[in-house]
């Protein structure tokens, strides 16, 4: 286990260098589906953060009991437990938001980001490392979701978190809050992030 990244490295990598959406292209279903406004995007990011953290901790605790051929089933069952908790919690305390998000909260069960983190980190490393990995990845996921949601909500409705930020003369680009807007925004932002990465690597080569 000597070559495994430390807890701090796991934490930092999750935020930008290995951002789940922009670098690993994981969890794209919620990324595309719930980013038409900041509020659903933040709710989704928080739910994923909760499930990811709990799942990573539990998997890490039982990592020595895992049988290789059964591990995916165990991952899925663990994740499903916490997704159910998150889903019921939202339905109880944030009913309107739970309605808005619809099937996308239960669908966190099959969010490949969480299974990926269980497989890559939690099933191999200690609880502390797994937890810091989960927090880093969750922050990265939240950043990605809110960056896409910010572009879509501002251009699509002229609002940010439901408050008007652009002048009322702004013609709402309705397409941005519809599914095509999600694909266009994600594509352009992905290109932008890659472009920055290229510039950075060029600079570091020159230095």
């Amino acid at each position, binding site marked *: 286990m000597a070559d495994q990244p430390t807890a701090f490295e796991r934490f930092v990598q999750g935020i930008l260098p290995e951002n789940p959406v922009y670098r690993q292209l994981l969890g794209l279903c919620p990324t595309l589906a719930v980013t038409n406004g900041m509020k659903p995007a933040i709710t989704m990011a928080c739910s994923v953060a909760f499930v990811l953290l709990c799942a990573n901790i539990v998997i890490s605790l039982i990592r020595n009991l895992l049988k290789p051929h059964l591990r995916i089933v165990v991952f899925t069952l663990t994740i499903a437990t916490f997704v159910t908790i998150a889903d019921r919690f939202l339905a109880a305390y944030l009913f309107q938001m739970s309605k808005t998000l619809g099937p996308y909260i239960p669908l966190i069960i099959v969010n490949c980001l969480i299974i990926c983190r269980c497989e890559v980190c939690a099933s191999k490393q200690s609880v502390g490392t797994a937890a810091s990995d989960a927090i880093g990845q969750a922050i990265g996921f939240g950043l990605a979701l809110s960056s896409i949601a910010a572009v879509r909500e501002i251009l699509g409705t002229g609002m940010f978190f439901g408050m008007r930020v652009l002048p009322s003369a702004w*013609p709402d680009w309705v397409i941005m809050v519809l599914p095509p807007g999600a694909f266009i925004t994600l594509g352009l932002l992905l290109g932008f992030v890659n472009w920055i990465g290229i510039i950075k690597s060029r600079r570091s080569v020159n230095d």
Partner: protein
Amino acid sequence: MSDTMKNSDPKDPTETAGLHVAPSPHIKNTGTDTQRMMIDVMIALLPIVLMSVYLFRLYAVKQLFICVIACLASEFLFVWMRGKAITLSDCSAAVTGIILALSLPGSAPWFVGVLASIVGIGIGKIIFGGLGMNIFNPAMVGRAFVMIAFAQLMGAGSYENMTGLVDAVSGATPLSALKFNGLTMDIAPLFWGKTNGSLGETSTAACLLGGLFLVIRKTASWQIPLSILLTVSVIAGITDITGSYSGVFLVHHLFGGALMFGAFFIATDPVTSPLTAKGKWYFGLGTGILIMVIRLFSGYPEGVMFAVLMMNAVTPLINRWTSPQPMGEA
């Protein structure tokens, strides 16, 4: 892109030599380069532009000006961002701008044309690698974007009787008047274009004139427009007979919408339509069916744009399906 630039060089020996002996493939380049084609298209668009300027006056001039400038500027900007050679001289961006402007309503505000141009050229064309690489017709990508983004500004409500020259039911294109209100008009204004609609689509006469020029010059294939028009005629004709419209329905669907403009100028884009003659028939058939399906069964009164975009998407499949077998292979 550098190939087409090279071919437009007048000193190219293949252009001047009367007899050119060379090993195969014997592809003759004279007069078929991009710039030549695009100038042909511009000449063919001239009657439509004149007609729209006559009908919609300053609205048409403004829209054409905005779209052409915005298309040229975004082509310049995005090609420069990609670090490629500037491709403004092949005129394709200018043609995209003209076609885009002619497909917009004259009353649409300035940002509609600008945004459609940026999206059409940027996302529709340069992102795929520039002219010749794009999957979708750039002008229609831009128009689809603003159509969905600004449904209010692009819908039937925006077609007001701006100059008083068109004898139309106020605020309606002939197709939406027929579809939503059951109102009809005479064949003469439909044919000559004194109706309401997007700038370039109203005049069937002008579209036919320009379109026939393109077909005779072989800049556009004849199979695509013919098969689209035949398919639409058959479906509209059947609807007409079964609905006992006594010809009105057929005439409206042939002359009333963007069918002529779309069939001759949008669907025939050589980049986004199939390569083989057989494929072009299939392409036209599919486009015609989709146009009528959208017109008859969707919330939109007009379907040329979406039909062409959908058929653009299956063009690679049509190409593979109809590519000729090399001799000797089973």
